């Protein structure tokens, strides 16, 4: 093995340039067998250490003082350690673990080791800082620190294929040379984690595939509810570290790609499973705390999915989408029988939901008809304006500056709870032995709405009209030349999106008790608002169903959980978004269309980023 020092520090590495097939070496100059042993051993030791005491006092949250029983952050390190160990063993070529790593075991090992290291060291540092010194660490704390450090060093010493270095332009000097060198080191660094294209999967019997789907969904659900349930900030940060790196390592291992291929094969089962799991969620809860978060996430996600028709499929950048949610919510509130509504009528839910959807659709057509003749940025600006016009109009319909319809900034308050066929949504019910509270009731109702939107999205996207949307998005001139009435088709997308948002709004009004104009701004601290909705679509993946759902959940949870950062909350949020867009510009769940890989095409799916689906 060559004993070159870290490549990032010495970019000129003449040894690697001269050798055509460079002796594959790691980022850290250790012999590969030693590195592998260190990485795997470190993982094992980290697992062991989580059963030891890390600190002497239970002042640090999560009680890390107990021997023989991991708690709090230790559990996260334990999971990371297990992952590291498994990938380490798989990288040795252990037979019964080879299914774990259809992709690259080494890259997966590196990611897992990094994640474990990050979580463990975060914990150790947090203990030292919060309790005032390293003396507060018990032996377990030292063991885990050393073990994970060794594991990371070992993992980084694993060899990888170095990229061909670009020849240096002899005229370059100073800044140019620096740029060249840093680009070179960055490429080398990236190559260290590059996944291999997974080998083609051995076909599984379909019952096994369904089991895989169920297992993947169960894992997803556990991780998700663990994330929601993290009770203190340290645990949430640790969770973010391990979840991020854990997902990265699974995806480097090729498992993510394999599972998504299987779910794509059984789309209906996956969908049904996901909805059953979501519907079962309230029954596993003893109180309404998480159901509250759940119903807000669902509203946000459903609206984001509706926006995905407009933005993801038809490619119309709509920056005022939340106005349609507002139209639906206000319409439903006006006919809800609320004492502050000027109309003293109480319509049944089906009628108010239908009315909310229809009125929102009419607004969509009215706003869309003049604006959809514009293209691109102009459309974005005009929709942004119309979104604000809605808010300001509602603000002014207060009886002084205009007719009294909406109560101005006070909004329509004390909206009564829904009552469908005698089922009172405001009261807790005993179903199947568990108590279903108010928010859980609405969660179940919202789930039905989400299901409707999902079905509408799926069916419309896979049809003549859906193809016309995508064609318009791809090349409007060519689409017109193919006989597509561009304006009409775009108006349908706009109206359909508005209609779905109005439908969600009619439920949202009842969930929140009150509708005020402030809820429907372009940017606001709490989702849903137009900026967050768009971010959820782009972050999750344009043109997909699960993308906006995942994106909305993350965008709801991350700011809520980052509240302890105080003034830096939005800053941290922005940094997170920038990082995500930098490393996964196609969104967390890219469209399958972009993932279609063809025989000899070397283009990785990640390269096909722009302009969606």
């Amino acid at each position, binding site marked *: 093995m060559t004993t070159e020092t870290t490549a990032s520090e010495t970019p000129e590495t003449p040894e690697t340039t001269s050798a055509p097939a460079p002796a594959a070496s790691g980022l850290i100059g250790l012999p590969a067998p030693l590195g592998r042993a260190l990485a795997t051993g470190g993982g094992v030791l980290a697992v062991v250490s989580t059963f030891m005491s890390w600190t002497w006092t239970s002042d640090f949250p999560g009680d890390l003082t107990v021997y023989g029983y991991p708690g709090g952050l230790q559990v996260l390190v334990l999971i990371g350690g297990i992952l590291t160990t498994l990938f380490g063993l798989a990288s040795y070529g252990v037979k019964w673990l080879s299914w774990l790593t259809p992709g690259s075991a080494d890259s997966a090992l590196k990611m897992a080791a990094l994640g474990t290291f990050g979580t463990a060291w975060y914990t150790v540092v947090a203990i030292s800082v919060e309790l005032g010194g390293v003396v507060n660490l018990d032996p377990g704390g030292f063991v885990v620190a050393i073990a994970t450090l060794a594991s990371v060093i070992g993992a980084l010493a694993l060899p990888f294929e170095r990229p061909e270095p670009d020849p240096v332009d002899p005229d370059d000097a100073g800044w140019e040379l620096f740029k060249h060198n840093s680009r070179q080191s960055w490429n080398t660094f990236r190559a260290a984690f590059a996944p291999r294209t997974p080998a083609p999967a051995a076909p599984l019997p379909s019952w096994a595939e369904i089991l895989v789907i169920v297992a993947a969904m169960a894992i997803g659900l556990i991780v998700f509810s663990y994330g929601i349930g993290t009770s203190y900030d340290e645990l949430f940060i640790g969770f973010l570290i391990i979840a991020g790196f854990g997902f990265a390592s699974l995806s480097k291992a090729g498992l993510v790609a394999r599972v998504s291929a299987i779910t794509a094969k059984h789309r209906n089962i996956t969908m049904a499973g996901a909805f059953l799991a979501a519907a079962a969620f309230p029954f596993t809860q003893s109180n309404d705390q998480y159901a509250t978060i759940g119903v807000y996430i669902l509203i946000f996600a459903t609206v984001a999915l509706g926006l995905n028709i407009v933005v993801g499929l038809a490619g119309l950048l709509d920056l005022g989408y939340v106005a349609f949610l507002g139209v639906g919510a206000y319409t439903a509130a006006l006919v809800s029988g609320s004492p502050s509504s000027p109309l003293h009528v109480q319509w049944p839910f089906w009628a108010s939901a239908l009315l909310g959807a229809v009125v929102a659709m009419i607004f969509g057509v009215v706003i869309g008809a003049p604006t959809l003749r514009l293209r691109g940025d102009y459309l974005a600006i005009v929709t942004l304006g119309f979104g604000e016009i809605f808010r300001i109009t509602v603000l002014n319909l207060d009886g002084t500056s205009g007719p009294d319809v909406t109560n101005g900034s006070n909004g329509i308050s004390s909206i009564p709870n829904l009552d469908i066929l005698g089922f009172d949504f405001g009261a807790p019910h005993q179903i199947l032995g568990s108590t279903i509270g108010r928010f859980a009731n609405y969660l179940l109702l919202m789930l039905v709405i989400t299901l409707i939107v999902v079905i*509408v999205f799926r069916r419309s996207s896979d*049809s003549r009209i859906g*193809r016309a949307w995508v064609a318009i998005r791809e090349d409007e001139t060519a689409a017109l030349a*193919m006989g*597509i009435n561009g304006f009409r088709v775009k108006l349908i997308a706009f109206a359909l999106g508005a209609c779905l948002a109005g439908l969600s709004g009619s439920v949202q009004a009842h969930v929140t008790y009150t509708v005020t104009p402030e809820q429907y701004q372009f940017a606001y601290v709490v989702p849903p608002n137009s900026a967050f909705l768009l971010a959820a679509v782009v972050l999750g993946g344009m043109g997909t169903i699960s993308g906006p759902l995942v994106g909305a959940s993350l965008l709801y949870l991350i700011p809520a959980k980052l509240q302890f950062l105080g003034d830096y909350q939005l800053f941290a949020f922005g940094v997170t978004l920038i990082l995500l867009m930098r490393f996964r510009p196609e969104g967390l769940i890219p469209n399958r269309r972009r993932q279609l890989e063809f025989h000899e095409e070397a283009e990785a799916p990640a390269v096909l980023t722009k302009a969606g689906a």
Partner: protein
Amino acid sequence: MTTETTVKDAAAGEVVLDARGVTMRFGGLTAVRGVDFTVRSGEIVGLIGPNGAGKTTFFNCLTGLYIPTEGEVRYKGEVLPPKSFKVTAAGIARTFQNIRLFANMTVLENVLVGRHTRTKEGLWSALLRGPGFHKAEAASRARAMELLEFVGLEKKAEHLARNLPYGEQRKLEIARALASEPGLLLLDEPTAGMNPQETRTTEELVFAIRDKGIAVLVIEHDMRFIFNLCDRVAVLVQGEKLIEGDSATVQGDERVIAAYLGEPFENAPGDEEAAEVAAAEAAAQADTTTDAVPGKENDR
């Protein structure tokens, strides 16, 4: 107007496209001036002219992108509607000079988009998914696969259009245009950037399209391609139709040669000058041959 029609008049069938006195002005500039032009069914007609002659402007008048300032364009007796999607629905399909496929859609989906005007299923039908929807969808797919077989792309139906090689992208564009079941197909420089072999395949493809009973109008720079292919060629120079006739007539016409190569000197050039000109031409030839490749690559 020049009315030298040496065409075998009665040979072809009914008039498909009939442009009468088409004039297109942009402000003070007259890009096309009083052009009369007809295409009959079962005909392949070429439209040539030096750069800036108004070919593309005239073409856009035929496809509804521009509305002629004067004159009118009739398709099978009906005046063309002023919107390009309505023109396609009426039965005129086109391809683009610089390929404009839907790059992120599959090959099959591209052709299915071409079927848009010939199918009726709207949003409700897509949402409710009645038996009519499935039947129409299946029929569309069958027809699209048929067209892909016709151009020889049936094996690549599930590939993304962006991943096709250049020549196949051209073929796909033709298949997509054919999917709208046109009576007249307008090809805008179909062989731009193609090597001789690909050009020959395209030639055969155009003949096959003609044999399906679809009239074809081709704009092209490649003279050999045009004169091999077309029953009739019209020459457009400075917005006016100079001559129209079969290949031999057009090739032999002095004015065409003048328009392309320039007027001969008034006094016969002396020996020295002739030699100079020959040398310059040779140099220019060398230039164009080397330049041609990168120039055409820009089209992609």
